[in-house]
């Protein structure tokens, strides 16, 4: 605490303070949340390498060459696989599909869950009960199995994988947002709005919804890691992203037993990338939760 002013370290309300420089604030929050910062740094690396993949590696991830099973070298940083494709290129291009599927399915699924919960919890009654029972059924079931069956039925394509994971995510967000709506709708400002004759939609979207944003963000960030794992698991089972798109999960299937002795970099590289990304999302999710939910601080 040598470089930070004393007053800043005792301030507990938020991380940003008026009059403080951007970098100072950043440094301060990094000190206070070392694990969350580590998560953010890891994610920044994963996202940057996925976005700028063509500038990082000259290799085409799908180019089949005769340089098969080469060990890591200056030319191929993580070696090549059984088809002579550059493993490093496949790993960083693989991040693209993982992040795309993770973000899209999380936004779609948690968004649908939140809207559903918002409307059904506010109105209550039979409709709410029906939605709840349906969520219970979805919730009681292993999410990977539901996603697997949905993709089997719809056929495996990137769009269907996103859809399947989104469906699996719905009950999570619905449950969290619902309990918040039940609290908020009894608040005096909602009663006041009702007394003033505001329309139901106005109350829902201008008074109730903004007060459910914090738990929603917590559940959405916590979901991201899980969504990426589900995509990787589906691809690993051969029901996810169809080839030849590089995908961490697919590149892991069947490579362990075949290349463990001959070329261990083939199964290890995508797995490390996958765990790192999920690790980053989990750390960030924890930090966001601590930040937005003061009751859980310090646990």
């Amino acid at each position, binding site marked *: 605490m040598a470089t930070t002013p004393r007053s800043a370290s005792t301030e507990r309300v938020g991380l940003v303070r008026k009059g403080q420089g951007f970098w100072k604030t950043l440094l301060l929050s990094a000190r206070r949340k070392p694990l969350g910062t580590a998560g953010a740094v890891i994610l920044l690396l994963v996202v940057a390498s996925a976005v700028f993949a063509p500038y990082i590696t000259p290799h085409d991830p799908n180019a089949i060459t005769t340089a098969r099973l080469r060990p890591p070298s200056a030319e191929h940083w993580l070696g090549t696989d059984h088809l002579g494709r550059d493993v490093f290129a496949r790993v960083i291009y693989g991040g693209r599909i993982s992040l795309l599927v993770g973000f899209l399915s999380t936004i779609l699924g948690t968004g649908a869950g939140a809207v559903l919960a918002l409307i059904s919890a506010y109105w209550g009654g039979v409709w709410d009960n029906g939605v709840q029972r349906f969520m219970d059924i979805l919730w009681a*079931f292993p999410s*990977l199995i539901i996603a697997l069956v949905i993709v089997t039925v719809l056929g495996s394509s990137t769009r269907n994988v996103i859809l399947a994971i989104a469906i699996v995510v719905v009950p999570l967000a619905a449950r969290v947002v619902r309990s918040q709506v039940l609290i908020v709708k009894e608040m005096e400002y909602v009663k006041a709005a009702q007394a003033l004759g505001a329309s139901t939609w106005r109350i829902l979207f201008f008074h109730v919804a903004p007060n459910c944003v914090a738990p929603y963000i917590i559940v959405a960030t916590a979901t991201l890691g899980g969504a990426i794992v589900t995509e990787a698991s589906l691809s690993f089972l051969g029901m996810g992203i169809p080839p030849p798109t590089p995908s961490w999960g697919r590149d892991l299937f069947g490579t362990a037993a075949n290349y463990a002795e001959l070329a261990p970099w083939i*199964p290890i590289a995508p797995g490390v990338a996958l765990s790192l990304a999920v690790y980053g999302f989990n750390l960030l999710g924890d930090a966001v939760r601590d930040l937005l939910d003061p009751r859980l601080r310090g646990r």
Partner: protein
Amino acid sequence: MRAFLIRRLLLGILTVYGVATLTFILMRIVPGDPALIALADPSRGEAVPKAQLEAKRRELGLDKPLAQQYITWLANSIRFNFGKSSWGGGDVVDEYLRRLPLSLNMAILAFIMTVLVGIPLGILSAIKQDTPLDYIARIIAISGLSMPSFWVAILIIVVLLRVFSWLPSLDYVPFWENPLRNLTQLFFPSFAVAFGFIGVVTRMTRSSLLEVLREDYIRTAWSKGLRERTIILRHALRNALLPVITVLGLQFGFAIGGLVVVEAAFNLPGAGRFLFEATLRRDYNVIQASLFAIALFVTLANLLVDVLYAWLNPRVRLE
């Protein structure tokens, strides 16, 4: 207590029924004619004689109205009749039951590992809060959450092959026939399934114990001069384990997903791989039977947790 159990039981039956209905709907959304799929691989575009197709449709009951199909499907699933596998042609339930012991065996082993490692690690992490030991336990816990079970399985396979040039055998030996062979075969796959749950249980035990340790009655116990051991194990843990039990029950469903990927990774002939192969072959009877079985297992596990919870927690029991 009895009313509570009856309500839970009814809710469980409703869940299984709901899953059965959803499966029925899902299987009717499937693009393409099931009779055609049963007779020929549609991707190859083989022509099937019309009479043969009609016969197959009658055999599968597809010529009946949808409502009647639904009732037949429900009646059949209650009697555990799921027809024949479209691959192999064996009775689905027989085939399933043949593969189930391996998966159950793995699930039980994984559960034992989770409890034996996760709870002590969580306790240690809580009573040594903010020491290096706590950080190590937390890092283990969060890596458990970040490493999907199939990736743990792959790491184990790579290490086993490189160090011992050995992999677990592929045919199942029941525990009561040869305990040692059974354990050498299933120890590593079960650990791959358990690893993530160890993380969950460690985190839950830690946070719940930390919370309980701040309670007044714990301060009373300290001021009575009791030993730390007694306070933690007899006073605090009893209350701290309640949410852990709930989490264990909730995680049971996720463990089934873990079984599917780990069995696929290790090539083990269990019920999980049966479902995985069925999805690859679009063997819908097998998928339906598996979903029904999973719904039954998850519901039973949740019921068991509810009963256990009520038994352990007088507040629930006496309500």
